[in-house]
């Protein structure tokens, strides 16, 4: 059974001058144990999508249309009590900056224990034991010591591991990682990515990894979805996306990654800026920056079509590989 099925999701924020649509017609499915990479530049709506799944949209934001079906239940319509049962339990989330996500005045053990006790009642000793076991699993040395320390006493990589540990405490079936390694050193980033991959493979946990960095994501994902200006412009298996990208934006992203043989050459860029939510152009949202755009592209927005699990929305898709 499909684990997560997002149908035609639309998210808006209410501002003083009226509602602002941020996400348009998002369609996405996820199978149990699958790893999906959600890629896009800042402002593309990828974080909003992740938060919308768990109903954690910041003040003023709400789902204006569509459904988020999780194990058959529509999360967008669920009441707060039902949502609380799912958050941290069936679906867990990891945020970007571990220093900000851990409460600085409370000890780690308290912040870990409450993740468990919010959903089950267990004797204190058992809860502690479970926490230490998970800390071991995510590769934290001397876990008993770290368990009773405060967030500011730990390094960034350590804190993020703890955030991951917290996410794993209740054996969730889905983890949402929102730019989880963006704030860390590159070496730590690689380590954590590797750990996440291993953990998910071991437990069969599904993972949605949100990032602006396509190269990072392609290392662990089974499938990749590319977002632009609040829409999914391309989605498919990772090999397809990387070796045979159809949408010009995806092609541009891949080309922007410095390759081994590109020393001495100018770095490739996608010119221009992404349009802001209130000022979207008519027609294809990417047309203004697209090297292949035609007059038709600027007039009519392309439909999203899918063949063999690889879908995209473009009038003039790229035909052959990564030229």
């Amino acid at each position, binding site marked *: 059974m499909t684990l997560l099925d997002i149908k035609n999701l639309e998210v808006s924020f209410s501002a003083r001058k009226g509602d602002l649509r941020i996400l348009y017609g998002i369609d996405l499915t996820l199978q149990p144990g699958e790893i999906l990479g959600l890629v896009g530049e800042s402002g593309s709506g990828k974080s909003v999508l992740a938060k919308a799944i768990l109903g954690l949209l910041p003040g003023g934001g709400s789902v204006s249309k569509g459904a988020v079906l999780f194990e058959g239940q529509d999360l967008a319509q669920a009441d707060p009590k039902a949502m609380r049962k799912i*958050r941290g339990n069936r679906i*867990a*989330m990891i945020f970007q*900056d571990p220093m900000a996500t*851990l*409460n600085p*005045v*409370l000890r780690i053990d308290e912040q870990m224990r409450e993740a468990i006790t*919010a959903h089950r009642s267990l004797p204190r000793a058992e809860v502690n034991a479970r926490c230490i076991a998970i800390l071991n699993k995510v590769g934290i040395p001397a876990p008993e010591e770290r368990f009773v320390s405060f967030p500011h*006493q730990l390094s960034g990589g350590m804190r993020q591991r703890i955030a991951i540990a917290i996410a794993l405490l209740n054996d969730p079936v889905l983890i949402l990682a929102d730019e989880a390694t963006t704030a860390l050193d590159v070496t730590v980033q690689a380590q954590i990515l590797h750990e996440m991959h291993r953990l998910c493979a071991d437990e069969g946990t599904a993972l949605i990894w949100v990032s602006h960095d396509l190269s990072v994501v392609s290392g662990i994902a089974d499938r990749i979805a590319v977002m632009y200006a609040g829409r999914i412009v391309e989605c498919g298996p990772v090999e397809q996306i990387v070796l045979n990208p159809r949408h010009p934006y995806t092609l541009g992203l891949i080309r922007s990654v410095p390759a081994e043989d590109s020393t001495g050459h100018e770095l490739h860029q996608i010119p221009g800026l992404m349009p802001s939510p209130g000022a979207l152009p008519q027609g294809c949202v990417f047309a203004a920056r697209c090297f292949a755009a035609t007059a038709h592209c600027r007039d009519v927005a392309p439909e999203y079509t899918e063949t063999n699990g690889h879908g995209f929305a473009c009038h003039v898709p790229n035909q052959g590989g990564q030229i």
Partner: protein
Amino acid sequence: MSLIVFIGVFAIGNPIDVLIDPAANQLERDAAIKSLGLDKPMWQQYFTFLGNAAQGDLGDSFVYNEPAIKLILTRLPATLELSIAAMILAVAIGLPLGLIAGLYPGKLIDRTLMSTSILMFSLPTFWVGLLLIMFFAVQLNILPAGGRGDTVNIFGIPFSFLTWDGLTHLALPALNLAMFKMALVMRLVRAGVQEQMSSDYVAFARAKGVSERRIVFRHVLSNIMIPVVTVLGLEFGNLLAFAVVTETIYAWPGMGKLLINSIQVLDRPVVVAYLMVTVVIFMVINLIVDLAYAALDPRARIGGKS
């Protein structure tokens, strides 16, 4: 500080003329001057004063003929009791109200509470005091209009909050004094709550499935207590000083009332004694606030980084 006050008090006017009966003849005047030490040169008087002060002797009050320091210290517990009661009231009422206002920003309750808080710190304390007396004591006749009630001695120091009569006498002045601070606490807590509720760790706690109640009372409250305690600690000194007004209105037998009278009759030793005691209390408060800060914020403790 002491030098300034010393010179100043002397410069105003000749205490001799104030204290010695104008009808006294020259002999009596001379005797009085000698006994009060007012005939020695200024600088000598100052050093004598310092020397005595170091031994805890700040001279005798011109008016009461008792050691000034003793006068102040006997009245200190009354002032402290009033101030502490006021502080407790300010927090007990201000904190919950500020919490409510912060949790429902922009709603009617928030705007009402904020307007009320502006009113509360705009009201001149002494006028509110009069109103309270008029309303509760005169009209409704349920609370006394002034003075201190029955006291109970602990370690020889009288405290009035342990008797019912004492409490009724304490109620109005404490409420009066607390009003200004209450508004301050409300605004502080509200701002703190608003700031914390939109922070990342609250979002993370929600993502863990933690209940809103625990988020507010354990996570958010622990974070806002730090600035609140710090501010309150520093404001306590302010409260002590402002007790002067409340004591005057309610005839509360504390240091403040004594101070006002002493200023009016130029009783130098008492004024100086008051200032000395106040300065010492300030230093103690600062120390306590520092300790409290370390207790509340784990980041502030020495040897934090492992």
